[in-house]
């Protein structure tokens, strides 16, 4: 997602922000994971922006996607090359207004962006966990976030918002903690992966595991499976774009040449783009985290977990007011998946707004500056904030 991040054109920013750490589940009070395994201690890296109001009714939890982190907006230092990943949405006067709301975002458990994950040192062995790290689920990510929200003394979240895998966490929050979720915004998301989405993830995982440097996840003291992770990211990027966006952005144009090279160098711009994205990704992301998080996303099945297979039943305990948004060119989580959740929400009498935003940038559209997305989120938040008891 980082390739889209730019400084705000109008120089509006939440300013200098800092990472914070929260550690819990110290033995013997470990977290009990969905798999049944006990695990601890767990550290979450998180950031907060804005002020929590007196009655604590203005808290918003942002949930990030596969390769995201806690750094949603602002800068760590004045010299940072880039702001946080959703700086176009989160800031003073922006769609999610830091002057009005108190915003929390934590890096998910299993990630490599500061929270406990496979690259973290196991206190028992003093070595990185590697594949000894337990398989975590979307539910486990939510349970860890719940511990953080409790720690912050927040009883109710005005909204939980996130796109893609972040959207799965949004739905899981609403299913597990209906009394805490006043409203919810799943963006470009789904209640369960299609076979197509699982297929792409599996090819990406195979690319990592086929890299001889992967070495069954034990690579932290030697060469890393960079080639495998780069290919995995290239596959990911294909699914985040769309036929239309690739045609507009690259077409069949050649990269810095007027004719084919008649060898296996990158001839086409799209090849060069994918190679560049893959190369950049390995600098910041851990291959094992990629395996764990994509597996959690593939396992996610809201209907199975909360509705005995029925989508309608899966939403029956939820109470949040919903804003569901999909994007026309998203072929990873197509609109029919958002419509299916809207249908189940309606059948349960839930308050739901839904908009399929016309956007050519595929699944990634939710991360890009989009005036329409900003204004619907702003309007929805104002309504739920004004309606919440003060």
């Amino acid at each position, binding site marked *: 997602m980082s390739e889209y991040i730019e400084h705000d054109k109008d120089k509006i920013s939440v300013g200098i922000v800092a990472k914070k750490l929260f550690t819990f589940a110290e033995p013997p009070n470990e977290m009990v994971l969905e798999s049944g395994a006990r695990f601890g201690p767990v550290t979450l890296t998180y950031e907060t922006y804005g002020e929590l109001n007196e009655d604590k009714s203005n808290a918003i939890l942002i949930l990030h996607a596969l390769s995201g982190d806690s750094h949603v907006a602002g800068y760590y230092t004045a010299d940072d090359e880039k702001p946080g990943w959703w700086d176009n949405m989160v800031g003073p006067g922006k769609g999610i207004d830091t002057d009005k709301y108190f915003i929390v975002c934590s890096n998910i458990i299993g990630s490599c962006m500061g929270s406990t994950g496979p690259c973290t040192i196991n206190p028992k062995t003093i070595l990185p966990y590697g594949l000894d790290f337990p398989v975590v689920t979307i539910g486990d990510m939510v349970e860890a976030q719940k511990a953080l929200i409790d720690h912050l003394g927040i009883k109710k979240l005005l909204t939980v918002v996130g796109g893609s895998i972040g959207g799965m966490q949004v739905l899981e929050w609403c299913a597990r903690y209906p009394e805490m979720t006043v409203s919810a915004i799943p963006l470009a998301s789904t209640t369960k992966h299609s076979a197509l989405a699982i297929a792409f993830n599996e090819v990406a995982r195979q690319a990592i595991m086929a890299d001889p440097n992967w070495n069954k996840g034990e690579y932290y003291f030697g060469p890393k499976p960079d080639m495998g992770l780069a290919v995995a990211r290239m596959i990911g990027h294909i699914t985040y774009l769309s036929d239309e966006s690739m045609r507009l952005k690259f077409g069949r144009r050649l990269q810095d040449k007027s004719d084919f090279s008649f060898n296996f160098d990158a001839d086409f711009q799209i090849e060069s783009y994918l190679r560049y994205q893959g190369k950049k990704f390995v600098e910041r992301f851990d291959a094992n985290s990629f395996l764990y998080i994509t597996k959690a996303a593939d396992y996610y099945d809201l209907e199975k977990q909360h509705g005995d297979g029925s989508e309608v039943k899966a939403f029956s305990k939820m109470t949040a*007011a919903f*804003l569901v948004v999909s994007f026309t060119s998203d072929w990873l989580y197509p609109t029919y998946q958002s*419509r299916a959740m*809207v*249908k189940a929400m*309606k*059948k349960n*009498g839930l*308050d*739901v*707004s*839904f*908009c*399929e*935003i*016309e956007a050519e940038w595929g699944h990634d559209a939710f991360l890009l500056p989009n005036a*329409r997305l900003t*204004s*619907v989120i*702003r*309007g*929805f938040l*104002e*309504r739920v904030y*004004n309606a919440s008891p003060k």
Partner: protein
Amino acid sequence: MRFDLQIIASWIEPGSRVIDLGCGEGELLKYLIKQKNVTGNGIEHNESRVARCIEKGLSVLQGDINEEVLDYPDNTFDYVILSQTLQQVYEPDTMIRSMLRIGKNGIVSFPNFSHWRCRLQLLSSGYAPVTRQLPYEWYNTPNIRVITIKDFRKFIYEVGFNILKEVAINTQSEDRYGKAITIFPNLRATYGIFLIGNGK
């Protein structure tokens, strides 16, 4: 606000649950929430209008009204509003039945095709009528149904529902002003507005 919407608003009990099918940019819903304290929902097909509604803080979802009405449980609403949209509905009887399944009452407004201008145009020129209320040519009109006030009364009787209230109106400049027509409404009114129920 459009004159027909003003009449519709005057029929709605304060604090009731309302859904507007084909709610446009949410003018009526916004008014009803503010003035009558209703719980309001809307369905609209057009992406930019849906976005305008959500921006205003309305609960509106994007979709085809014919499909979307099917998902609501019985008697979810007190009023189901279909304003100036019936003439674009492919299966009006299915739509009316759905409306009175999901709501206690339905409110329907439509342009009256038997207004004297329509009759005169057809009689004198021989071309399909084009009026301010029905401004399209036959080949580009979204209005696939031609309805008269008399037709609608007959239709409601035939599908087995009751007319609880009806007003025929004549509107002026941009439909914001108008008056009720009581003498020869089928000939003189530009719009008909009906409150319907299942009479049980």
